[in-house]
């Protein structure tokens, strides 16, 4: 153990002051919504930060996605064939040639150049959603690594309406996050943005320029 560590901990333990802890707060009552209310809240918050939200039924989402890819003129769409969306996606484009879908099985380090400069968009599943703040929650996996939702200029996320929680606090508590934290857990609330120049909002700094969410009811 380092000397710095010993000294810091010694100073803190020796100097430990006795101070009155501030008055305990009553637990902040959490916002509550029913399922349609939750989707509305999620959509409103997301749209307020210029994310695109499409709500659809299970059977229709592949067609919706196909029209979005055409509309956005994506040169290609990065996906994970073994991820939760893989099979549906392969099915959706099975007849088209050439298909916009592309996948890479190697570690990202092997095709970094392509990831940074030649991918038009990437699609991933979102594990959960948060209604209160309009947030996607991702626990990136081996199949859908974290750079999928970060590097390409367009990120499309597919979220099941039943996985939307009212608040972040609810989600952390009910899913027992403290027992199973992954390498990286992410809350994503809109496309990348900045207000560093004159407090003026500008979208698409270093992360995705567009965030498109398909909510399946």
């Amino acid at each position, binding site marked *: 153990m380092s000397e*710095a560590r010993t000294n810091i901990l010694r*100073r803190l333990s020796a100097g430990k002051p006795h101070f009155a802890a*501030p008055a305990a707060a009553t637990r902040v009552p959490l916002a509550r919504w029913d399922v349609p209310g939750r989707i509305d809240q999620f959509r409103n918050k997301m749209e307020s930060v210029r994310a695109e939200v499409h709500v659809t039924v299970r059977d229709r989402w592949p067609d919706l996605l196909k029209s979005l890819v055409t509309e956005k003129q994506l040169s290609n769409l990065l996906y994970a064939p073994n991820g939760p969306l893989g099979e549906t996606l392969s099915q959706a484009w099975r007849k088209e040639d050439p298909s916009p879908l592309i996948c890479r099985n190697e570690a*990202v380090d092997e095709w970094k150049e392509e990831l940074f400069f030649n991918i038009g968009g990437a699609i991933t599943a979102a594990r959960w959603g948060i209604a209160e703040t309009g947030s996607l929650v991702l626990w990136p996996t081996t199949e859908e690594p974290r*750079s999928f939702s970060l*590097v390409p200029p367009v990120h499309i996320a597919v979220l099941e309406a039943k996985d939307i929680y009212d608040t972040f606090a609810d989600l952390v508590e009910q899913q027992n996050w403290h027992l199973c934290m*992954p390498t990286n857990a992410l809350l994503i609330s809109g496309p990348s943005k900045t207000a560093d*120049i004159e407090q003026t909002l500008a979208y698409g*700094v270093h992360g995705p320029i567009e965030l498109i969410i398909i909510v399946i009811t």
Partner: protein
Amino acid sequence: MQQKVEFHDRAGKALHNPQIRSNFRYAMDGLMLKRLRSFPDLDELNRLRLRSAEIRANALARLPELLEQLEARCRENGIQVHWAETAEQANEIVLGIMNRHGAKLLIKGKSMVSEEMELNHYLEQHGIECLESDLGEYILQLAGEPPSHIVAPAIHKSRQQVAQLFKEKFPDIPYSDDVDTLTRNARDILRRKFYEAPVGLSGVNFAVAETGTICLVENEGNGRMCTTIPPVHIAVTGIEKVVEKLSDVPPLLSILPRSATGQHITTYFNMISSPRKPDEKDGPDEVHLLLLDNGRSHIYKDAELIATLRCIRCGACMNHCPVYARIGGHAYGTTIPGPIGSILEPQKAGLDQLGELATASTLCGACGEVCPVRIPIPELLNRLRFERVRQDHTGATRGQGGQRDPWEARIWKAWSWVHANPMLYRLSMRMATGLRWLLPNRLGPWTSVRTAPRPAAKSLHTLAREKGFDHE
């Protein structure tokens, strides 16, 4: 007392710079309004402030245990933990990691602790390039200036000034003062750097002891880039940023962005609990957490001043400060400016060095009112004003008594003596009213923008007595 002269000098210059005045006024008005709108329910705000203050105070009450727990959990998760007592030691640790990897480029997310360490300067002396990737910090790096606000570092610059800077540094890119174009240009310039950099550095917003998790709050995605793409990630933090439980994070995350910029949440909330695992396809192979003391354990000794360490760096106190809004962040001459800087920095550097900052306040109380973790900043400013002149040397604050002025002390002693003796008091009042014409018209800086005060011909006591109120 060198600092006093420097501070007054810088403040004076800022006050006479109309561009600085208008840039700050515009930005502070906007930020105050945005914060106000993001808390429509005052009851909710008050409960959330109580809860957040409680979380931070409880974490501080158990700080040594929580730091050990954080270290143990991080190690179990594969994160390497380093401790530094001083900025110098912290810089050496970062340099050591860079050298071990033969790394010549460090790409940085926003970190006020790295500013405190003056890391860029240190690494550059050792032949390592540091590149700021937060847009505001990047602009300042191009300009060769320090941040003037902890959340919006380039707030003192206008769009035209930024455009001019880009034109000078990148003559090939066509001139534009359109914010979207400037932002997109910065994206293109920095993209390749994220891809090339062997090491990324970030700050830490909360470090969770329970799970060994580093939490980062950001909007741009550069923080995620710095912590995801380079093979090595170094996170630097002050030892006070630890919280006990994962369930402490949601309330703090709810209040931080709303207090800072009025956003209901930031674009990204990034929770890192380990380096890349064997089957994973991206993320850094090495994650380092650097815990910096640099005077914090000293502040920790005082039961009242310890509240300084609750700060979650939202910047609301500076956004609402009438002094900060007029003189801007650079005048303070410290890493953290504004009200929180005026209590934090003098305690770290010593009151003999920076004690003057405790007087850079009107004590209007706005900072304490908006603080999301209820730090009683005005009370602490007053406390430090006492500490800087106290003579008994029984306090724990560094440099206490260092700014005691013997003349000022004598005047106050005389004042209290006069007020404790009725005879003397009456005599002095008679002198003040009788000899009032002797008061000069010029009274130093006071009369440079005001007319000199003139004592009344008759004191209130005299007037009352004339009206027949003879007794107390």
